[in-house]
């Protein structure tokens, strides 16, 4: 076994076996995970890992995730880390638990451990049989993990590596299943009146008029925070509309001149830092030099269900049911704002709609807590669609300026990647201060904490900015824009989508300039066999023809990356047809995520990543005028529709002998680049600013 310092972070923080596994009297095994279901199927994958290592049936397993009363603190469920870190911890713990019981069974049965087999929790040999449940009082799990057991080798896997039906889907397609669907006796319905923009404050509100409305139980006004609770949901909505019409706000501080996102970012104050550098500048003049710049706008998380939480304050205990990605972080932040001891606050994860990063899940938990305390009754708060688009953090806009040189052999000799962006993470519990909306608005307010991005190697704005190709000289420069005209935080892939779009578009441009097939050009600069394998597999599955050029309408393009340069490898080929807009006919992905836990779950994540990235790349941008955001409904923020969906093929390269690699975000960057490159192949038109809308294509062609 490896030294303790190489243990997964989750296990270093939570070493006690009983934090993870308990044998229950009812002939089940209870496992606890800090990683939560976001629609990515993680709870099912965790159950597969636990059932595999414990040798119990799925039906004998209970799994609880994200409940601060009992679950291990496993940071956030984010960054495609759940299998890599949480899954690795679960595997090690369950292997050790099984081996402790196996040793006990050897004593019970008077048998050598080698002669005992374990199946559905029964330990059997020629001499007899016992079980986890018969031995539950004989083995003490209240001990620290000691790395005394080795998990099963992949050849022995019967559950891991095979498709498993998600544990949650049947309930979701038939009735109540989400936090929004919960009810408690005496529960009120809450809505929040938000300011019209960032930086405006409430001047006046005649709350008495609202309190007189039918069903209104409470109006909480604290500074610029206005919360309303009513007996019936439609009454809360009517009261919200009334409050909106009555509230007077300070003048908006103003938004940057709308328009070209590159210009907006260039004009905001920034600080410049070299975040990565390798090799020396090539001596002498480069044979050929290239420059180009790429951008993406601010993007909404745009969850289909709006953020929601249920809170109850009873006997000094505040309990919040929430779809947060970081229950323990949220707990600490809520305790601070509510001025309650940590032990008096419980966060219990309940599923919400997919979040794709930091949406309003944490903010609405505080909204509900404040209202539940004010009303002394449980309150379910549900954000409006407008709240969700305007007040959930957006993904940061980005600008990337690329420079590269080729040597006389048409090999890349130097590469520079200079980007402009805001932070890509401003989650509650990340850095100092309180990152919860109501805390900034209430009286007295908590200050909005300063922005701090995630550093490399994982990276935030510079995630995946280091090209994964053999280039002697590479430099990454980050112009960090601390202030933001709209609220931003983590959106699926952080900066990786834009950086990979820029890198892979730029490579394509250079390949085309020197007359080398773009797939061939990538392979000439690629010595990592796993990277080569996905590039070759995607090209083969898509029917890539070397040197093909488009016919002014149809084209194919490729994009590749290894997510975070340390998680899953992914190459995507898209085939498009351009009429008035880009129609994606087909997307083919090849993925190497190391050992696969649930192949069907992985496919589902890749398909979803591709489709979401098509939506981002072709359609999405947050819009504003000089005063406020104008993307306030689905009409102002269109996303991919059913009639725009291509055929998708996913090739999985299983590496059962290698560690699992996070894969939930690996397809986005390659997909975006593949679309831009396909447009170029089809029409010879290079578009470097996202989204690739019909209006922009028409303008570029004019």
């Amino acid at each position: 076994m490896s030294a303790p310092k190489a243990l997964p972070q989750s296990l270093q923080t939570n070493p006690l076996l009983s934090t993870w596994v308990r044998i229950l009297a009812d002939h089940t095994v209870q496992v606890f995970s800090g990683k939560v279901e976001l629609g990515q199927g993680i709870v099912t994958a965790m159950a597969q890992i636990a059932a595999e290592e414990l040798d119990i049936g799925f039906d004998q397993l209970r799994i609880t995730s994200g409940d601060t009363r009992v679950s291990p603190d496993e940071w956030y469920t984010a960054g495609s880390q759940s299998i890599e870190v949480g899954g690795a911890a679960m595997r090690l713990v369950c292997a050790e638990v099984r081996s402790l019981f196996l040793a006990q069974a050897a004593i019970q049965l008077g048998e050598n451990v080698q002669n005992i087999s374990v199946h559905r929790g029964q330990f059997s040999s020629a001499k007899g049989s016992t079980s986890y449940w018969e031995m539950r009082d004989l083995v003490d799990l209240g001990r620290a993990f000691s790395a005394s057991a080795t998990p099963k080798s992949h050849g022995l896997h019967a559950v891991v590596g095979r498709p498993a039906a998600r544990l949650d889907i049947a309930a979701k397609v038939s009735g109540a299943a989400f936090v929004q669907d919960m009810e408690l006796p005496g529960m009120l319905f809450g809505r929040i009146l938000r300011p019209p923009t960032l930086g405006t404050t409430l001047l006046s509100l005649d709350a008495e008029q609202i309190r007189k409305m039918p069903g209104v139980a409470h109006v909480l006004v604290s500074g610029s925070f206005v919360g309303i609770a009513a007996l019936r949901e439609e009454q809360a909505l009517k009261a919200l509309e009334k409050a909106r019409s009555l509230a007077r706000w300070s003048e908006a501080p103003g938004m940057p001149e709308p328009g070209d996102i590159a210009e907006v970012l260039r004009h905001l104050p920034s600080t410049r830092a070299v975040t990565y550098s390798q090799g020396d500048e090539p001596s002498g003049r480069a044979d050929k030099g290239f420059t180009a710049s790429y951008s993406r706008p601010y993007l909404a998380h745009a969850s289909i269900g709006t953020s929601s939480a249920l809170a109850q304050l009873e006997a000094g205990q505040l309990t919040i049911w929430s779809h947060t990605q970081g229950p323990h972080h949220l707990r600490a932040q809520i305790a601070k704002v509510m001025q309650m001891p940590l032990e008096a606050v419980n966060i219990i994860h309940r599923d919400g709609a997919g979040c794709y990063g930091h949406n309003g899940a944490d903010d609405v938990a505080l909204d509900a807590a404040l209202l539940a305390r004010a009303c002394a009754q449980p309150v379910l708060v549900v954000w409006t669609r407008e709240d969700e688009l305007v007040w959930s953090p957006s993904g940061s806009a980005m600008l990337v300026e690329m420079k590269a040189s080729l040597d006389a052999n048409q090999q890349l000799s130097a590469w520079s990647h200079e980007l402009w962006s805001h932070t890509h993470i401003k989650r509650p519990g990340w850095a100092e201060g309180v990152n919860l909306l109501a805390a900034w608005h209430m009286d007295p307010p908590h200050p909005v904490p300063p922005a701090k991005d995630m550093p490399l190697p994982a990276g935030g704005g510079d995630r995946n900015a280091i090209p994964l190709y053999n280039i002697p000289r590479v430099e990454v420069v980050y112009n960090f824009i601390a202030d933001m005209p709209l609220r931003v935080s983590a959106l699926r892939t952080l900066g990786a989508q834009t950086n990979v779009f820029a890198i892979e578009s730029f490579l394509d441009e250079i390949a085309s300039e020197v007359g080398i097939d773009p797939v061939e050009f990538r392979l000439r600069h690629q010595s990592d066999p796993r990277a080569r394998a996905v590039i070759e597999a995607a090209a083969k599955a898509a029917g890539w023809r070397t040197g093909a050029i488009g016919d002014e309408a149809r084209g194919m393009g490729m994009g590749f990356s290894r997510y975070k340069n340390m998680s899953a490898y992914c190459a995507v080929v898209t085939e498009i047809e351009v009429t008035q807009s880009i129609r994606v006919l087909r997307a083919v992905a090849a993925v190497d995520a190391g050992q696969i836990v649930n192949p069907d779950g992985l496919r589902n994540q890749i398909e979803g990543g591709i489709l979401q990235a098509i939506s981002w790349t072709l359609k999405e941008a947050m819009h504003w005028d000089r005063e406020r955001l104008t993307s306030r409904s689905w009409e102002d923020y269109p996303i991919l529709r059913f009639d725009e969906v291509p055929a998708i093929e996913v090739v999985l390269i299983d590496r059962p002998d290698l560690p699992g690699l996070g894969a939930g975000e690996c397809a986005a960057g390659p997909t975006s680049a593949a679309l831009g490159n396909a447009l170029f192949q089809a029409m010879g038109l290079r578009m470097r600013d996202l989204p690739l809308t019909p209006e922009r294509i028409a303008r570029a062609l004019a």
Partner: protein
Amino acid sequence: MSEQFNLHVNGKPHQVQAEGSTPLLYILRNDLKLKGTRFGCGAGHCGACTVLLDNKAVQSCDTPLWSVVGHQVSTIESLGDAKAPGRLQKAFIEMQAAQCGYCINGIIMAAEALLRANPDPSDADIVAALERNLCRCGTHVRVLQAIQHAVRSTGAAQ
């Protein structure tokens, strides 16, 4: 003004007390406890709240209570439950056609309306029937496959 309304939901009569302008969505979820119909936007844009009104798909978030009197309302719960799922639910479970699953019930109800009107729809008919439904996780391909699967398995059963 709050009034009494007589409704027919999932084949049963119900009486509710509410204002006539109340969106049907909240009556279903809060008065009748039919939580499978979900709020998404409140403006009829996303389809998460889709139910059937006399076999036609409607968005319950912008359908006022008064307008459904004298009509048959059907929600996802009328199709089946987790133990005995209906044909579409079964197909969605078999094809694992969900990621977060929040949009799925509205999509299933839009598909149910299609299948009631046209038991043998083409792929294009299916796409057209989902014109008003949004999915953010990118489960579209599986959703289309699940509906096709339901059509085929129903055809085989007949």
